[in-house]
């Protein structure tokens, strides 16, 4: 008798909950766009977060809602973007150019001296916290290779003189190295942009001259020399507007400290190969 009662009570409770949940599932059903599932299938599924949305499903939801463009995934290429665009029934916006990570510092061990001997944890963030790092330039690369560790695609290697070198062929422009650098030295740049100011120092010219042999002193010669008005001085630092720059290279020749550099993609890939 007691057994029957126990079975009955639990069975009934379970049945009631089952019915309640079934009704609730219908009543509180949230419509999900079928396109969202299709787009999730196309995305890489690594949930790397490089797009700025919470994982691949988060990005898919935003694309369906119209909050993100069809090519918002920086890891998957234009093929995936065009497939997503066809699911959404829109034309893909003008092909977005592949970006690559570039290291905006040339102050290697020979060109920029050390202020103290650092003997701590081999991480840039840790050294950065101790009096702004060991480099005499507080904007320069610390050279401990946190970006190398952060790269999941084996596209950054430490060069012989303590500056990281990006293998542009392998770079997926996911931006993990950009986040890993406590100095903000690594930036994503359109791959075809070959002329870049490889310095991030906002210090005044005289101070830069004291600390680094190859830093931007903010003299403004490049600004005057540029025929396209693509260069402006911001905080004692020359900045190139990539949309205006046509890569003529006049600034490269005029720059007195040689901190503006033209690098051919082929050269960069060779360098990476020899470094690894």
């Amino acid at each position, binding site marked *: 008798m007691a057994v029957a009662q126990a079975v009955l*009570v*639990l069975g009934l*409770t379970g049945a009631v909950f089952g019915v309640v949940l079934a009704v609730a599932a219908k009543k509180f059903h949230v419509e999900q766009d079928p396109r969202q599932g299709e787009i999730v299938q196309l995305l890489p599924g690594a949930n790397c977060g490089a797009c700025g949305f919470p994982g691949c499903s988060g990005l898919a939801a935003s694309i369906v809602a119209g909050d993100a463009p069809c090519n918002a995934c920086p890891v998957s290429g234009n093929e995936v973007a065009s497939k997503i665009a066809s699911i959404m029934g829109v034309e893909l916006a003008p092909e977005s150019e592949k970006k690559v990570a570039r290291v905006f510092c040339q102050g290697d061990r020979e060109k920029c001296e050390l202020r103290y001997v650092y003997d701590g944890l081999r991480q840039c963030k840790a050294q950065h916290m101790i009096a702004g790092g060991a480099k005499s330039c507080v904007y320069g690369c610390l050279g401990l290779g946190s970006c190398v560790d952060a790269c999941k695609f084996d596209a950054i290697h430490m060069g012989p003189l303590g500056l990281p070198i990006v293998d542009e062929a392998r770079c997926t422009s996911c931006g993990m190295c950009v986040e890993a650098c406590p100095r903000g030295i690594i930036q994503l740049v359109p791959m075809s942009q070959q002329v870049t100011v490889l310095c991030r120092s906002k210090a005044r010219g005289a101070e830069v001259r004291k600390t680094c042999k190859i830093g931007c002193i903010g003299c403004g010669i490049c600004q005057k020399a540029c025929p396209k008005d693509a260069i402006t001085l911001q905080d004692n630092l020359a900045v190139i507007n990539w949309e205006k720059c046509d890569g003529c290279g006049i600034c490269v020749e005029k720059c007195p400290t040689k901190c503006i550099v033209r690098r051919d993609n082929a050269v960069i890939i060779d360098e990476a190969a020899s470094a690894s």
Partner: protein
Amino acid sequence: MAKLLVIFFGGVLLNNFILSRFLGICPFIGISQQVETAAGMSVAVIFVMGLASVVTWFFRHMILVPLGLEYLQTIAFILIIAALVQLVEMVIQKTSPTLYQALGIYLPLITTNCAVLGVTLLNVSENYNLLEAAVNGVAGASGFALAILLFAAIRERMELSEIPEALKGFPIALITAGLMSMAFLGFAGFRLEALFGVM
């Protein structure tokens, strides 16, 4: 009132669910790598444990006790908590997308969390009334939140520390948890009853 305070601070400090009663260890280890996710989990646990305490109290006193079926409480409570969490998740998803974003992914994780079942059974063994049971549920979950937030902050710091290769990851986390538990045992000497004037 004083008794409620005793229950609350007892649940948070003296009988901390994680560090003294060793309940709810899986999320404590699993979701404590970042303070942010630990905070999300904490809020979800506070919500579910408070709700579960109230609902199971009604179920026990309106169905199990009149029928003389108290011995079924463990299995019945599992059933109730699982169904309750599912229901709450669906309601939240429909009514408040923002809250769902914040809690949603953590809710299913705690359906079978032993801390939730533990608090409901403790309410029974301590013979709490409805209000005391609800306070005990929220207090237990607050203790859980306190422990997991402290632990997550420590683990974030450890990410940047030099740790012997063999101890990296879970080993050092477990050692840390042990040390925290010992530290919390220091609260065991408190006499809350005397402090709040209930004997």
